[in-house]
């Protein structure tokens, strides 16, 4: 899909090239992450793909076509572009921002309207609520979603993303990363993703390019990069705690205990007591009719509420307390582990995108998965 052949970029006035003799082939539908310390030429490499910079030597092909043969404006309309600062236009509404490229392409008005609404929903924003607002009134995470929607507006086959989640707080970043990976499963774009954060690279990439001083040092899958770093530079880049980093590669679903019984909101105390006794963590999860997780009841909750004194009247709805130690089913084991450590509980409840209870993961489950993973690798 994207091929770079012997690409060198030398900026006027600098002695050493920013990128030198760079060769890379990115397959259709893959996320290729360029990672390396600042000044290693990763952003320069990316910007040559949409001709914001032009290579001094070498050729770049997108979809088999030499990009120097394509008008740069036409080329860029076929390549989505997301940058760290997002660069939303503050004087235009969210809808108008997303409609930028379709408008340039002179799409009919109702087609643009439909597409904008569809995109905002896709990135998890409500067109009714957010569509008419201006970017400065949105949170960082929401702005980032609008940026992604805007880049995908004309459905380009290729996306370039330069530290797209770099400007938001770590919790939002993790959530945006997971959402984006979920989105990518549907849209199957070919993505060039630039970051200096090795954890993000491992989590997001199908392939990772480790770069140093304008050169490609290693081009490998995240797994290969972790298990067999090519040299000291890559080993240092990957860091010492590789087994923890490997947790980025495993989804919560892989370690999930699915057969956990849960209580309905109107279950009686006797039923609840039985559930708690059968549950390995000695708690019971309470769900509503749609199986959405409402909270948790532990033995302590039973005593506190005095429910044991008159068991006839109490039901689950009166007893449960809010649950903070939960995570989404498409988060990584690394996310799950940090939730576990943050709340000091031995388990994390897993829910799906509609907040339905899926099961739990305990520390033992994580160890189990890591062990079997190491054996198979």
């Amino acid at each position, binding site marked *: 899909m994207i091929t770079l052949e012997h690409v060198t970029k030398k900026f006027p006035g600098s002695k050493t090239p920013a990128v030198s003799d760079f060769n890379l082939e990115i397959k259709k539908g893959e996320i290729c992450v360029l990672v390396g310390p600042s000044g290693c030429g990763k952003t320069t490499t990316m910007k040559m793909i949409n001709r914001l910079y032009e290579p001094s030597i070498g050729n770049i092909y997108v979809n088999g076509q030499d990009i120097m043969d394509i008008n740069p404006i036409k080329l*860029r309309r076929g390549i*989505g*572009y997301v940058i760290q600062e997002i660069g939303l236009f503050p004087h235009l509404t969210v809808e108008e921002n997303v409609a930028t490229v379709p408008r340039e392409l002179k799409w009919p008005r109702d087609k643009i309207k439909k597409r904008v609404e569809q995109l905002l929903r896709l990135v998890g924003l409500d067109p009714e609520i957010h569509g008419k607002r201006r970017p400065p009134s949105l949170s960082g995470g929401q702005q980032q979603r609008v940026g992604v929607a*805007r*880049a995908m507006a004309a459905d380009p086959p290729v996306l370039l993303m330069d530290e797209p989640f770099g400007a938001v707080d770590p919790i939002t970043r993790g959530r945006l990363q997971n959402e984006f990976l979920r989105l990518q499963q549907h849209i199957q774009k070919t993505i060039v993703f630039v970051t200096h954060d090795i954890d993000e690279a491992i989590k997001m990439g199908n392939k990772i390019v480790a770069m140093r001083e304008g050169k490609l040092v290693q081009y490998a899958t995240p797994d290969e990069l972790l298990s067999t770093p090519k040299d000291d530079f890559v080993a240092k880049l990957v860091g010492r705690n590789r087994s923890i980093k490997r947790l980025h590669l495993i989804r919560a679903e892989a370690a999930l205990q699915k057969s956990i019984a849960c209580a309905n909101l109107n279950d009686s105390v006797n039923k609840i007591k039985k559930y708690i006794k059968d549950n390995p963590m000695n708690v019971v999860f309470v769900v509503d009719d749609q199986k959405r997780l409402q909270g948790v009841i532990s033995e302590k909750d039973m005593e506190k509420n005095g429910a044991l004194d008159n068991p006839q009247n109490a039901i689950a709805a009166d007893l449960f307390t809010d649950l903070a130690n939960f995570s989404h089913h498409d988060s990584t084991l690394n996310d799950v582990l940090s939730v576990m450590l943050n709340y000091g509980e031995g388990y994390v409840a897993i829910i799906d995108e509609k907040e339905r209870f899926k099961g739990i993961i305990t520390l033992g489950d994580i160890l189990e998965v890591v062990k079997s993973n190491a054996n198979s690798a």
Partner: protein
Amino acid sequence: MRLLESLGTISQSIAELFRFIVARQETIFELTLEHLWLVLLAGFIAIFIGVAFGITITYNKKAASIVLAICQILMVVPSFAMLGFLIPFFGIGFTSGVIALILYSLLPVVRNTYTGIQEIPPYILEAAHGMGMSETAVLLKIKIPLALPTIMAGFRTAMVMIVGIGAIAAYIGAGGLGELIFHGISRTQPMRVMAGAIFISLIALFTDLILGKIEDRLLARTR
């Protein structure tokens, strides 16, 4: 006693001034319209020339420093001297007056257009170019709308300034409220001078107020 006396004189003069204004209301009204026409015409032309220059020089640093220096020089030339320079080319009268006012309003308009565009965060323009917007589209849809509040602030400064300088243009027969002042001086009629000064100040105040309101509205749009 003295205080009362002087208070009395002041109130007498105010009454006299009021009578003068009422008696000459038609002349004053005509001169006010003339003054407004002079200033608005000059301002209208200046905003087109100024914005065009301001935009052009954002594409070339060297041209920017030259154009801004020329505008700076134009602005420091004393108004009487400026009118003097223009008379050989455009004669005595309205044309020279308008041209002088245009030249004076150029600096604030050109400079504010230039800085307004320069101050747009580079990443906004990078995003615009990176998405495949043409330079014309970036200029019309991004740069000008974002620089508009700054451009408007420059235009406001220019307008308020040329309302005042416009009075001097009456000396070379450009018309306007300046006539009242100059006639008043040559005939030692302080009431005329006062009336002219008051109405010029009122025009300046209203111009500032109205343009300030527009500026606020534009600012609110980009925040």
